C-alpha cells in the first residue's frame, strides 16, 4: 500500500512522511514487513496472509491522525567532509563553467546549504538530498559514467547525493567523502536516514587520506 502525503518535493511534505513513518515504527502493525519512506509517500509492504487492505487502511488512518499530535524526535544533523575538485571531483570544472562561477564559488554554494535527506534509495545507503541552491541546478551528464568511485558527492538538477559503493551513474561529480555511507555489518546499516539534515564541509587531500 502506498500512502501519499502530497504531490510535490518540499521539506514540509517530506517531514510529514517522516512523522508518519516514525509513528508507524513506534506503533508497529503485525503483518507489516517493510516500509519505505520517500519524498512524498510511504510505501507499506504487508503480508497478505496476515492483513488485508481494509485492515491496514483503517490502522494507517488512525495513525495519520497522530501527525502533529505526538512528539517526534528531532532529526539528527550530520556533517560530511568532502574533498572537492581535481581527481576527486571530475565534473567540477564543467559545472563551474556551466554556471560561470569559480570553483570556490561552487564549493561555497554546495557547503553553504543545509540539506534534508528526502529518501534513501537507488542503492543501499544512497541519500537523495535537497534542495540544491538554484544557482547550482545542473543537468545530468549526457553520457552516464560506467564507474563512479565510492563516496563520490554528486549533483543533478536541484539535488545532491553520495554514492555509497562504486557504481555506474549519471550525476555530475563535485568531490568525494572519506566517510562510509553504508556498512551492512553496522546497525543501522546506513550513515544517514530519511529525514536527517546534512551539511558538507571542505577538506583537502591530506585530510582525506588521514580520514581513511
Amino acid at each position, binding site marked *: 500500500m*502506498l500512502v501519499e502525503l502530497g*504531490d*510535490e*518535493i518540499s521539506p514540509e511534505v517530506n517531514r510529514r512522511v517522516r512523522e508518519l*513513518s516514525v509513528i508507524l515504527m513506534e506503533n508497529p502493525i503485525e503483518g507489516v*514487513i*517493510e*516500509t*519505505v*519512506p*520517500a*519524498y*512524498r*509517500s*510511504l*510505501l507499506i*509492504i504487508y503480508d*497478505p*496472509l496476515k492483513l*488485508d*487492505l481494509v485492515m491496514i487502511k483503517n490502522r494507517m488512518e488512525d495513525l495519520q491522525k497522530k501527525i502533529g499530535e505526538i512528539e517526534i524526535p528531532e532529526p539528527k544533523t550530520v556533517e560530511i567532509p568532502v574533498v572537492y575538485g581535481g581527481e576527486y571531483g571530475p565534473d567540477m570544472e564543467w559545472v563551474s563553467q556551466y554556471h560561470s562561477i569559480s570553483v570556490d564559488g561552487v564549493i561555497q554554494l554546495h557547503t553553504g546549504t543545509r540539506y534534508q535527506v528526502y*529518501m*534513501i*534509495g*537507488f*542503492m*543501499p*545507503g*544512497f541519500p*537523495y538530498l535537497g534542495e540544491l541552491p538554484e544557482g547550482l541546478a545542473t543537468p545530468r551528464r549526457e553520457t552516464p559514467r560506467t564507474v563512479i568511485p565510492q563516496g563520490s558527492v554528486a549533483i543533478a538538477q536541484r539535488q545532491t547525493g553520495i554514492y*555509497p*559503493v562504486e*557504481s555506474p551513474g549519471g550525476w555530475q561529480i563535485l568531490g568525494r567523502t572519506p566517510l562510509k555511507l*553504508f556498512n*551492512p*555489518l553496522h*546497525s*543501522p*546499516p*546506513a550513515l544517514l*536516514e*530519511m529525514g536527517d539534515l546534512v551539511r558538507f564541509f571542505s577538506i583537502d587531500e591530506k585530510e582525506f587520506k588521514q580520514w581513511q
Partner: protein
Amino acid sequence: MAVVETIEVLTSGPLTSLQDLGRFGYGRYGVPPSGALDIFSLRAANLLVGNKENEACLEITMFGLKIKTLRDVVIAVTGGDLRPFCNDKPLSMWVSFILKEGDTLSFRGMKSGFRSYLAIGGGFFLTEVLGSRSTNLSSGFGGFDGRPVKKGDIFTAHSLHPHLETEGRWFPQDLIPRYRREWRLRVIFGPQDDQFTEEGRNTVLNSPYQVSHQSDRTGIRLAGPSVERRPNVHESIISEGVIPGAIQVPGDGQPIIILVEIVTGGYRKIATVITADLPLLGQIKPGDMVTFEEVSLDDAYEILREMEEKIKGFRRRYPPLPRRLPALHSVCLIQTYGPVCG
C-alpha cells in the same frame, strides 16, 4: 568440529548465488529484499530435505553449475528444469536424493523455466547479514562472501545432522508448476493506473509482450505495444518505494516488471502482479511471451490462500527436522560477524 564440508563448486555457470526468502526491514535504508525469485520452488526444495522453508539454497540461472559432494548429503532440485545430472545419469527433480561422497551434480541446459533451486539437508553454513542469508549482488554482502558462487568455493553445513533420513520424499505431482514459454500473469491495477489512458490500460491487458534479453534480478523488461499515458502526464514521477511485481512504464511505453534488487523507482506503475504469481517471475526467460489478466484484490487474496494451503499440506506431512546445533562457542569462533549464533 563444528562445521563439515559438504560441496565443492567445479564450475559456476553464468549466475549461481545463495538466496533465502529475502531480506526485509531495511528498505528504508535503500536495501532491497534480494532473495530467491521463485520462492515456491525454494520452499518446496527445503521441505523435501527436512529444512525450514527459509533456509538458503543455491539459485542456479540457466545452466553450467557443476558441483562435487565432499561427503554423503541429501539434496533436492526444484524449479526450472535445467537438465540436472548426477554423475552421468539424469536426476529427477522435486524429490530428495542422497548423493554419495565424490558424486558430481551438473546442470546441462534449459529444458523449461529459467532457474533451479538446490537445497541441501541441514542447509548451507552462512552468516546472516541484516537478517538474511540472501546475496545482495549489487552491494556485495550476504550469501557467500557477498558474491555469486565461483569455481573452487567449498560450502559447509551448519549442522552435524545431514537429514539423510529424508531421502525419497516426493513433492506431489499436481502441485508442481508447469513452465511454458507463454505466461499469463494475473495483476491488479494500480497504484498509478489512473494516469494512463483507457487505451493504455487495454493495451496492457490485450497485448502479448516479449521478454527482452536485458532482464536480470532487478527487472524483467518487456517489448511490445507502447502503453499510452494520459496527455500532460510527465514520463517520470517523484521517486517512491516499489515492490516486486510492480509493472512500471518508462517514457518509451515498454513495461518493466520490477523484481527483487531495487526498492525505489521513478516511473509510473500501471499494475502489480499478484503475490501468488510472483514465483513464476523467476522462471520467465528472455524470448518468452507474457500477457496480463486483471483480477480483483479479493481474488488475489483467495488465490494466495489456496497456494499457501498446498504448501501447508505438504509441510504437515513432512515438518522440518529440528536443527541440532553444534556447541555454541565453537560456532562463534568461526563467525566473523553477525548478530546471533546459529
